[in-house]
């Protein structure tokens, strides 16, 4: 049992690392607004599945690393990811046991809320309104959510089965 948990512990940092790396992927200008918010998706997965493993303080720290990595306003991702983790903590039991499609809708709502906070920060900095395509990334995120969920779930199942053997 302890060994299984130990094995699983690798999946958390590796999946977070992959999401952080995807967040700085070089994109053609047309794809910038379509690229899903991978860090938010992975934080959502772990928040729903394990609840306590990703505490608010840890998420805040992770958000800061993302801010530094992307070179944006310091504290922006920290705020957005912490709010995301907080909301997931509040609604976890309501979202978790739904089928994937309903879950994707809940994820869409969370991602739209996240984008809305980003918009507020942009406006507060006097950067003006982003193009309408700004709102496409949450949709793309909700569309890839079932696959993110499946891939991470399968991976955890397999590592659990391997250690049980």
């Amino acid at each position, binding site marked *: 049992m302890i060994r299984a948990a130990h094995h699983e512990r690798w999946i958390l940092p590796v999946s977070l690392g992959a999401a952080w790396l995807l967040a*700085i992927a070089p994109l053609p200008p047309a794809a910038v607004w379509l690229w899903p918010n991978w860090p938010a998706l992975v934080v959502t997965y772990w928040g729903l599945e394990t609840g306590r493993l990703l505490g608010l303080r840890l998420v805040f720290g992770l958000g800061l690393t993302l801010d530094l990595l992307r*070179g944006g306003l310091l504290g922006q991702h920290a705020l957005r990811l*912490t709010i995301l983790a907080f909301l997931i903590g509040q609604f976890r039991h309501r979202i978790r046991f739904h089928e994937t499609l309903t879950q994707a809708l809940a994820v869409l709502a969370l991602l739209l809320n996240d984008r809305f906070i980003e918009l507020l920060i942009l406006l507060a900095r006097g950067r003006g309104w982003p193009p309408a395509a700004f709102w496409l990334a949450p949709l793309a995120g909700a569309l890839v959510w079932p696959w993110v969920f499946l891939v991470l779930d399968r991976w955890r199942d397999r590592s659990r089965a391997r250690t049980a053997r």
Partner: protein
Amino acid sequence: MNTPAARVHAENTGRTAWMIGLGLAALLLMSVDHRGHYLDRVRSASVTLALPLYHAWSWPAKRLAALAERLSSRTELLAELDRLRARELELNAELLRYAALAAENAELRRLLAARRMHDFTAVHGEILSVGLDPAAQRVIIDRGAADGIMPGQPVLDASGVFGQIDWTAPGDAAVILLSDPDHALPAQVERNGQRTVVQGTGNPHRLVMRDLPANSDIRIGDRLVTSGLGGHFPAGLPIATIDAIERSSGSGFLSVSAKPAAALDRSRAVLVLRDPAAGQP
């Protein structure tokens, strides 16, 4: 007191308290970062740590481009070579003319006491393919302090002013784009020498000037060049072309916007101008 319900309640209150605390901390951090350059040192230190990750993305992109080049056919390459040879000849001829003009120009500039272009030496740099925050208006290039690059140095692309060096790491440097809202560049109208300051808007296709009086002699299509004031840039580099002038009746100033000469969102290669005469800016 220690019932499960009470425990859950206490846990929730704790979470909410942490959320508020961390939220305030984030807001404080953002406003400090937005106000000034207090966190620049933190940022350049952390980006130095992140550079391997940037290169991790940039390397395959570069390899892919190299592969595409290798796969292009021999005839295409020969045609390219012919084109480049012809271009070199043209440039050589132009260079001869330039040498004579430069001597004449140096004489005139000495009279005006402006910075001379040939005081500067250029370093070629390539922009790393990495997706930074679009609101940050920065790119990373593969040349750094080890190549003599220092904050404040001008950065150009093939068609005009691209930006300025923001901070440096030993092997890399960040360039603040001309279009960053925090970036302002002393400029003049090429046609009549009218001085102004060009500011970024966050949009790579639009720059603005807010300091031109309502009676300024300025037209759509006027070209803006660096004025050489401010010390970092040599005079006469193309910056932008004016594409809209709005006369608002209320204020005494025009609202002028211009289209940058450089391809701020597309260029892959840039030149950094080093000034051997200058120390740390």
